[in-house]
């Protein structure tokens, strides 16, 4: 069977896993990596699950590999920080059956809290890293990655980027190759990483890196595209390869690196000898460039003209190298920005409205509710990484004492709480801070596009699963005051928050209401504004609901967006909303 299809990079990646005979997948969602796992779950031959976080996912995948089946685990760039602990030692143990890890970087921070370059993790953990440039390569590189993993006894990371993950291009489909379960034999010197054995494995890792470097010298994953008309050379990787080809065409010879760790030495030296000037076109940090300088290749130009911030594209390259700039038109008009907003009917809105009204310090976290930081709600003081709301609040209160404890809260989503909020809550109970933690339980992992999680009662395949009982969990770690409130009820929610702030004990408030976009959620009819009763006071506008706007000095509700949540109705003192 051979067939051409348009596929997202992530979808092609999933197809590659399928074709390579991958058996078990354990991942945690994160843009732009999520669809790999969602898509691979559609193949019956592959067992796939959402783990509570990336560390658990990576350890599960390593367990699968040691157990003898080809394994995969996917995450976004910051997820690899969470999974770094198992990664750095999995590098030492190596694998039994192949282990492939996807890490998706987000150049341009379309959906992330930082712009880290995950190649640094590959270098530091001494794990090989491949980087495809389009969907076809995604599929092929995954298959290669499994071979490299098994041939060199190592986990292999495949680095994705937003543009490669979320662009569709043409892919040739082929059949799955079933790979039998490998035998498992107990080998403590390989799998028990206590000092005596780990010392031996570190020697192995260094030797392996040298072998991988030799492989990188001749592997077809690294290729030189020589142009007869070339005026200069370019070394590039990932999405930047595509921008390079489009901008420079035959004016440049291109060394395309599909293996971004370890980098070849002789291949680069030979290529760089051919031209007076070599441009290194790589997004984010100047890793290839530093490598060139380290091996004594100095006719390279990289970060002095290409920024280490954001994405590169064909225009940037054309401008920096060829001095070519496109003409364009624009209106002489001040065009308002359109930042993302909480959806109409979002249960987070009511909660943040109350927090704004109370004027408390809000230790924030990551999810749809981070939008509570934007105007008009503007009710968030900090957002760092998943879980940091809870532990950060404890620290803030330890710094500022009892007074602060009555005037601050942490907010954290259900998925994020399970991911890494629980340990912070244990710390609050164990080390006694009178902190107030609010769990925004919308029964789904919203931000990344509706993934199930251990609180939702369903697994990745949508089958029934055990749902963590948040109330009991919080009590079990030592929080005595656990309350539940409905964020569609503003007065009740405000009252509950007030009481818990006043209490001289740590407390958890579960603000519970499913995401308005969930299919099973029944919406009430859209609300209407009575033009007669509306006095144009704009109190409803303070909610920041995208369905409400002002026309001719009166509020109007967009019936295509409104889901009838009713918080604007509760807010209106004139009874103008029905």
């Amino acid at each position, binding site marked *: 069977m051979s067939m051409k299809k348009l596929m997202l990079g992530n979808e092609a990646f999933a197809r590659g896993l399928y074709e390579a005979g991958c058996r078990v997948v354990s991942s945690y969602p994160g843009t732009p990596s999520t669809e790999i796992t969602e898509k691979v779950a559609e193949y019956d031959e592959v067992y796939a699950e959402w783990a509570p976080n990336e560390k658990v996912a990576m350890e599960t995948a390593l367990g699968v590999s040691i157990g003898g089946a080809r394994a995969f685990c996917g995450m976004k760039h910051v997820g690899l920080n969470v999974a770094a602990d198992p990664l750095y030692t999995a590098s030492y143990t190596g694998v039994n059956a192949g282990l492939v890890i996807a890490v998706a970087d987000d150049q341009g921070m379309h959906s992330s809290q930082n712009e880290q370059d995950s190649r640094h993790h590959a270098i530091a953990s001494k794990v090989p890293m491949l980087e495809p440039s389009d969907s076809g390569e995604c599929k092929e590189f995954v298959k290669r990655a499994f071979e490299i993993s098994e041939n060199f006894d190592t986990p292999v990371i495949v680095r994705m980027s937003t543009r490669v993950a979320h*662009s569709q291009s043409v892919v040739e489909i082929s059949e799955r190759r079933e790979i039998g379960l490998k035998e498992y034999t107990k080998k403590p010197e390989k799998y028990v990483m206590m000092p005596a054995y780990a010392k031996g494995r570190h020697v192995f890792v260094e030797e392996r890196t040298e072998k991988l470097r030799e492989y990188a010298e001749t592997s077809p994953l690294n290729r030189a595209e020589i142009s007869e008309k070339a005026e200069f050379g370019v070394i590039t990787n990932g999405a930047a390869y595509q921008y390079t080809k489009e901008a420079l065409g035959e004016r440049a010879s291109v060394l395309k690196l599909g293996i971004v760790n370890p980098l070849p030495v002789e291949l680069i030296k030979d290529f760089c000898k051919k031209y007076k000037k070599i441009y290194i076109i790589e997004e984010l940090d100047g890793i290839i460039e530093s490598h060139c300088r380290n091996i004594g290749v100095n006719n390279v130009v990289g970060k002095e003209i290409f920024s280490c911030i954001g994405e590169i594209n*064909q225009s940037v390259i054309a401008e920096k190298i060829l001095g070519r700039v496109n*003409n364009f*038109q624009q*209106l002489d*008009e001040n*065009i308002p920005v359109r930042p*993302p907003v909480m959806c109409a009917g979002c249960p987070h809105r009511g909660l943040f409205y109350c927090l704004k009204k109370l004027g408390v310090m809000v230790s924030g976290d990551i999810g749809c509710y981070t939008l509570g930081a934007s105007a008009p709600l503007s009710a968030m003081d900090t957002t760092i990484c998943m879980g940091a709301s809870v532990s950060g609040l404890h620290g803030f209160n330890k710094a500022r004492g009892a007074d602060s404890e009555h005037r601050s809260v942490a907010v954290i989503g259900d998925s994020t709480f399970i991911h890494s909020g629980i340990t912070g809550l244990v710390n609050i109970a164990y080390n006694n801070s009178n902190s107030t933690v609010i769990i925004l339980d919308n029964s789904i992992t919203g931000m990344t*596009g509706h993934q199930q999680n251990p609180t939702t009662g369903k697994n990745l395949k949508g089958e029934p699963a055990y749902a963590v009982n948040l109330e009991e969990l919080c009590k079990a770690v030592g929080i005595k005051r656990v309350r539940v409130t409905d964020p569609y009820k503003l007065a009740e929610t405000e009252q509950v928050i007030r009481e818990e702030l006043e209490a001289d004990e740590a407390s958890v408030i579960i603000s519970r209401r499913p995401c308005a976009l969930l299919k099973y959620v029944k919406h009430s009819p859209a609300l209407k504004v009575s033009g007669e009763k509306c006095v144009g006071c704009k109190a409803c506008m303070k909610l*920041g609901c995208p369905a409400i706007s002002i026309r001719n000095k009166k509020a109007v509700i967009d019936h295509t967006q409104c889901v009838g949540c009713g918080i604007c109705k509760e807010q209106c003192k004139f009874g103008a909303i029905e």
Partner: protein
Amino acid sequence: MEIKSIMIVGVGGQGSLLASRLLGNVLLAQGYDVKVSEVHGMSQRGGSVVTYVKYGEKVYSPVIEKGEADMIISFELLESARSLPYLKEGGKLITSTQQIDPMPVITGNMEYPENLAEKLSEKAKVIAVDALSLAEQAGSAKASNVVLMGVLASRTDYPEELWQNALKECVPAKFLELNKKAFELGRSV
């Protein structure tokens, strides 16, 4: 053949993903190399959403930069204005006349600019369509994306059959009839 670039812009939730997939499928069936670049994640929550479709003999970059788009298809007027710099000289802008207030307008910090369709027409070839009404006529406000694909289809000459196949491929069966109607209404604008 030179690479052609079509940009699809709108507000998160308006269905630009479906539109770009329809178009991508038609172009693939026409025998082109195709790349479609989508936006997932944060901006899908009611923010500005931009999708790129590029086709030709061999397409490298999946993104479209300023001054590169042969055509822009826009689901919302303010987004049309925002995307104008991406249009090539002589390029075409197909825009819905729908207006959706962004947060700075909702909060009263800024005004929604007036007469955008007219102002855009002074700068480029503009086809303005009340896609929302046509979509509602077809049975759902959500189908304005497909109405605009119909408008695009009437301005290009890819066989009708390819569009129909793409609709079948990309739209869930229970919404197929509705979307076919929306497409037809757009086509006859």
